[in-house]
């Protein structure tokens, strides 16, 4: 199988291009999607002039339009430029897209919309209104599926699945991940939603992570190996529905669980994982669960300060070592 190396940004663009070519009902709407600050949708308008739509600064409005278009035969891919602006669009996505099918009694009412959202901090002092991680609140809404890819390969396969999905998908991306490179096969592949992936096998501790933090966890696992600790790294890929089976199997093998995420700890994704393991697999654990997460703070708006509260490779290494 032919493969090429590409960035997450390029992989996402390939996914969009292939899906738009395959299916006329797929279209993109968002702020500056023709040129695009993240380069994900850049220049696609040249190929698909009617289906790449630059929207005004109206996150709630154009997200709501995504719902309406999805109800009536289209497959919109809505781009919210920064995670933080999701809160403007919260009603359209969390209140409407998530609940619409149920509220209307099911049947033909479906919302096959993807909401792509760039999140995460440490791009040089973007601060608390351009750098949050809001995937934890997003997983609290039944009716939605929530995805966060951590590699170019997964990004492409998951976005293709999200576009073909008949339910609304909140598809988180990370600004620092856009430039991360990896191998992506040339063929038309998809990655099923709801399936985690073991990114590294190990027998001593399970580290569950996703998104950009996954990259840090993989580096931490290398460092830990040098000290004789074999970490198993579980990449969630889909946060809702969560692949609890893969997590539990890994914990059964390693007896130790660490979660790692970029959002804050209280009410975070790690909290959900820890609670799930406490309910379903407490007997497998021989140590308390540890959560690596952002400080309970407001993201500092300076390039110097923002690194301090966001989990780094060393935080993961230190946390794991404290368990041995």
């Amino acid at each position: 199988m032919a493969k090429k190396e590409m960035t997450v940004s390029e992989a996402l663009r390939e996914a969009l291009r292939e899906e738009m070519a395959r299916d006329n009902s797929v279209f993109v709407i968002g702020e500056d999607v023709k040129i695009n600050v993240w380069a994900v949708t850049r220049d696609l308008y040249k190929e698909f002039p009617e289906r790449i739509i630059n929207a005004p600064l109206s996150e709630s409005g154009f997200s709501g339009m995504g719902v309406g278009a999805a109800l009536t035969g289209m497959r919109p891919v809505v781009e919210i430029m920064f995670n933080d602006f999701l809160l403007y669009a919260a009603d359209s996505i969390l209140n409407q897209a998530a609940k619409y099918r149920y509220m209307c009694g099911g049947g033909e009412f479906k919302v096959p919309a993807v909401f792509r959202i760039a999140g995460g901090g440490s791009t040089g002092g973007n601060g608390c209104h351009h750098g949050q991680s809001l995937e934890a609140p997003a997983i609290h809404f039944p009716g939605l599926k929530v995805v966060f890819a951590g590699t170019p390969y997964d990004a492409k396969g998951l976005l293709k699945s999200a576009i073909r999905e008949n339910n609304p998908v909140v598809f988180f991306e990370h600004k620092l991940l856009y430039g991360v490179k990896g191998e992506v096969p040339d063929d038309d592949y998809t990655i099923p939603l709801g399936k985690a992936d073991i990114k590294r096998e190990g027998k001593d501790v399970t580290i569950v992570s996703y998104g950009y933090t996954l990259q840090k966890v993989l580096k931490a696992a290398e460092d830990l190996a040098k000290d004789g600790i074999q970490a198993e790294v579980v990449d969630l890929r889909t946060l809702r529905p969560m692949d609890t089976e893969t997590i539990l199997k890994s914990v059964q093998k390693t007896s130790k669980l660490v979660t790692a995420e970029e959002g804050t700890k209280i009410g975070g994704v790690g909290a959900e994982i820890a609670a799930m393991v406490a309910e379903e697999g407490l007997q497998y654990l021989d140590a308390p669960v540890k959560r690596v997460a952002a400080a309970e703070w407001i993201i500092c708006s300076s390039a110097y300060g923002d690194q301090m509260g966001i989990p780094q490779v060393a935080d993961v290494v230190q946390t794991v070592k404290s368990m041995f």
Partner: protein
Amino acid sequence: MAMIDKETVLKIYTNMVRLRCFDDKINEMLEKGIRIVQHSTRGQEATQIAVPTAMEPGDYMMPYHRGWGWAIGKGMDPKILLSELIGKKTGCCKGKGGVHIADWNLRIMGRPGVQAAHVPIGAGVALSIKLRKAKDAVVAFFGDGASNEGNIHEAMNMAGAWKLPIVFVNENNQYALFTPNIETTSVRDLSARAQGYGMPGITIDGNDAIAGYEAAREALQRARSGQGPTFIEAKTYRIHGHTGFDQFHLGVYRSKEEVEEWKKKDPVMRLRARLIEMKTSTAAQLDDIDKKAKEEMEAAEKFAMDSPYPTREEIFSDVYAE
């Protein structure tokens, strides 16, 4: 009445009477202790029936919280509507939507519980029509209260910018819950805002069914021919309170005299008088319509009350599509 034929006027009248009887039936059921969220349509029957009458069957309706006219006018059977309102399986949303009324076949596209949330959704349906190069149009109803939500402004701007096939119908009944809009709203005629969104805006007498029909017909024609959206403000009044539990609407946030004045402008009686005056129908013929509507609502109540609730399994289904 150049644009409207006798048959259509009679259809509008019949549905306005059916709507009023339906509204009265809900009030009667509320008095019996049956729990229904009632945002009464009394006084607002004209626009709510006239506008859907002007729509084609393929046109999409984005309804709002007040009243039931947009459902009955678009062709929903009152017994199905009433079943939904009391949570029965025979309802249009299988007893799970309640006041959030939707009907796929009638193209009633859902009624969110959050004010104005449905208006961008309606604009999205209009965008979808445009992208699919279809010939349908959308009508989005909303009240004067919702007209101050940001969602309305965002949706109207995009509809104007992209010339989407949508008609915004604002029923201005002058009160948002217990607050008169004179306290909260920057303009007296909401239609004045249309100019800011690049579309024509008109204010009509919301208690004149024929004016509502003609305005909607023209706006739908504009929408369908690619000329873009229209904003119609229908000035009207709700005779009852915000909901069945509003104890303040007579003499607290509005005067009894004001309510009495508006009762004189009753849209149903007005159309009835016009039909008799124009010799379209005799009083006896119209009495017969009234009688049939009452009987229909008695039967609807019986049907709804006798219908089963959804099973536990059905209550928990449809969170996700396959």
